[in-house]
């Protein structure tokens, strides 16, 4: 039989005390780490140090996003000038000039030294006569007016999905732009940047054909009047689609939503609706000359929705049909007014 020595008993007491302190210390560390990990993982995303990422968006690589100028490239509204300038005639040059003159003339929009981006519709590799793209003569006349106003540089840009070189060549846009003294920007390496469009549904962050816009302070859209298989009509608002990059065809799932986004994305200096010819059927590609009729009209406005609504009613001759849904969606964002009749319209006959 052995008896426990007093030294060993004291050691045991001391050992228990040390073990208790050690246990409490380790438990506190574990609890602290657990609480910290719980906080950073579960705290709402806006809270300090929160790592919570419920939809995985925070984990994606963030590319710096650019923004277009606040208010876009628009000029100040004018109280007395017409809202819509409509020129009818058979000669394209005089029609373009008359339509722009009707809303104040090019001097209202372009000043000496301005860098102006002109965005035609060069979407398809089709000759211009088939009506699927902007007529080169309309572009020529517009560039001449912009240069007359003293612009330092005129840039012509579009991003067709099919080979840009072929599209620009076969539509005649390349030759027309260069001959008129503009610089053509074909989409290629290094020319797209991530654009932030605040409030957009589909393109809040989306690759945008940025290079032509670098340093530009005025933007003019010039689009044909076309039937469209999905959105029923493609005119000046839909024309901005040609500035998007990436897999933009997916937007056709909500074609009206994306067009409303486009109206929000780009507030132009003004737009020109090329109604010299109208692709009234089999759009947006067309093919047969039987799908094209002479419109003999050019429309200018600072409001693309108003210009398009005019085109819908007067050029596509669909007055009896309701406007496509994108008009109401865009108007709800206060980026235009499809009710063009509510505004001052000046119609002139030229040529």
């Amino acid at each position, binding site marked *: 039989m052995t008896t426990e020595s007093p030294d060993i008993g004291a050691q045991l007491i001391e050992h228990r005390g040390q073990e208790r302190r050690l246990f409490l210390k380790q438990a506190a560390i574990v609890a602290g780490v657990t609480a910290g990990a719980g906080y950073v993982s579960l705290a709402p995303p806006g809270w300090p140090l929160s790592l919570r990422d419920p939809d995985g968006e925070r984990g994606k690589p963030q590319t710096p996003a650019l923004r277009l100028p606040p208010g876009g490239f628009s000029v100040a509204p004018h109280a007395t000038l017409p809202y819509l300038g409509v020129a009818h005639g058979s000669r394209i040059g005089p029609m373009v000039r008359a339509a722009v003159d009707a809303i104040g003339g090019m001097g209202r929009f372009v000043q000496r030294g301005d860098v102006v981006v002109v965005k035609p519709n060069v979407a398809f590799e089709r000759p211009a006569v088939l009506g699927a793209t902007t007529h080169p003569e309309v572009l020529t006349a517009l560039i001449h007016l912009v240069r007359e106003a003293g612009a330092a540089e005129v840039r012509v840009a579009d991003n067709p999905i099919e080979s840009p070189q072929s599209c620009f060549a076969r539509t005649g846009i390349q030759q027309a732009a260069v001959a008129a003294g503009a610089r053509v920007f074909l989409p*290629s390496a290094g*020319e*797209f940047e991530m654009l932030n469009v605040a409030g957009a549904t589909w393109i809040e*962050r989306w*690759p945008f054909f940025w290079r032509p816009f670098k340093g530009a302070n005025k933007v003019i859209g010039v689009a044909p009047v076309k039937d469209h*298989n999905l959105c029923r009509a493609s005119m000046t608002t839909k024309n901005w689609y040609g500035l998007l990059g990436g897999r933009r065809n997916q937007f*056709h799932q909500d074609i009206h939503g994306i067009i409303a986004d486009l109206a929000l994305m780009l507030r132009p200096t003004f737009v020109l609706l090329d109604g010299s010819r109208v692709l009234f059927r089999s759009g947006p590609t067309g093919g*047969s000359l039987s799908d094209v009729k002479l419109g003999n009209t050019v429309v200018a406005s600072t409001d693309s929705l108003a210009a398009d609504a005019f085109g819908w009613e007067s050029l596509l001759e669909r007055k009896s049909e309701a406007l496509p849904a994108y008009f109401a969606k865009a108007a709800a964002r206060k980026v235009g007014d499809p009710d063009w009749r509510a505004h001052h319209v000046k119609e002139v006959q030229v040529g």
Partner: protein
Amino acid sequence: MDDEDRLLIRDGFRHYRRRYSLTEVRWGLVTLGLMGALTAWVVWKGSHPVDPDLFSDGTALLKPADGTSSLPAPAPARVAPAVDRGPLPPNLAGAGWHEDKMTQFDADNLYVKIDGRADYFKSFGFRRLYGVLLVSDKDPATTVDVELYDLGAVANALGAYGGERAPGISPQVTDSGLQHVDRNALYLARGPYYIRVIGSDETTAVTQKLQVLGEALTAGVKGESLPWAFALFVGQMGIDPGKIAYFAENAFSQAAGRDVWTVRPGGNSDDLEVFVIARNSAADAAKLATKLRAGFLEMGEPIGASLVKDRFLGTLAAVRSTERWVIGVHGAADDSVVTRELGRLKDAFSKASPELKQRARPAVVPSKKGDNGDH
């Protein structure tokens, strides 16, 4: 006190024993091996995703350039390598012309060619587009685009063809397809293929080329007999073949409106449509007729036992089944028109030959459920 005699754990993170047992080492190695294998699998799967674009929001299409900017993948890279002519006959260029380039597009990249209209062809069962650009040797600006759409079935080709044909144009009917020339363009439906040939203008050089191409395509692209609906509408009822249309889906804006043959006896400007749908059994036909009537009722009110008056247009519709077929009238101005047109349809079926009746079957294979077309 040596280590063997110690009672206290001086370092709380160490255990008593100085070394692991052999069993522990083995289990540790097995665990490490499994973790390594798991890591390798994750890395491999990450670099070989099933769908590379699954999580793409467009960012992936940007790549750095000069360290300062980025760009989308150039569109031409999406075009499939153009080496296969598919059903296109060889040597389409002929004298005075040359082939500039050949292209092919499938359902995934058709939008590259015709963004905005791709869905039109997809609604007709699009499989593949074969294209060739012909350029005049004399003037490079004078071109002809030949586009051959493989739509998988003769009914689809006729449907797409009919949808693109301008109103008022009567097609040339052959025993193996339809075709017509419309100013600068030539259109053909041959077998499962819809072919459109688009000239850059309507000069003599182009129109002559269209004629030559028409002959070459007719000879070189195999056609098929026209579907039974042509025999019914043209042969039995004497209707202009240019007034026949085919809807693979969504006829009358109804989900049940699949595989529908229609004619507009009064032309496109007239709302009146007469239609017929073939089913595999009388029971299927009866079910489908009930569904279509219910669809018409959603947009109108019943008039008597069989008519439906459109709430907005004020026109009348009627649908019923006869044996394996659903027949109907849509957009009629009054009930006498309905009675007349339904009578013509029933009469045509009653006088149809057994061979025609045998041919009058669905173009689209029903789903495995084999029910009434709601698939």
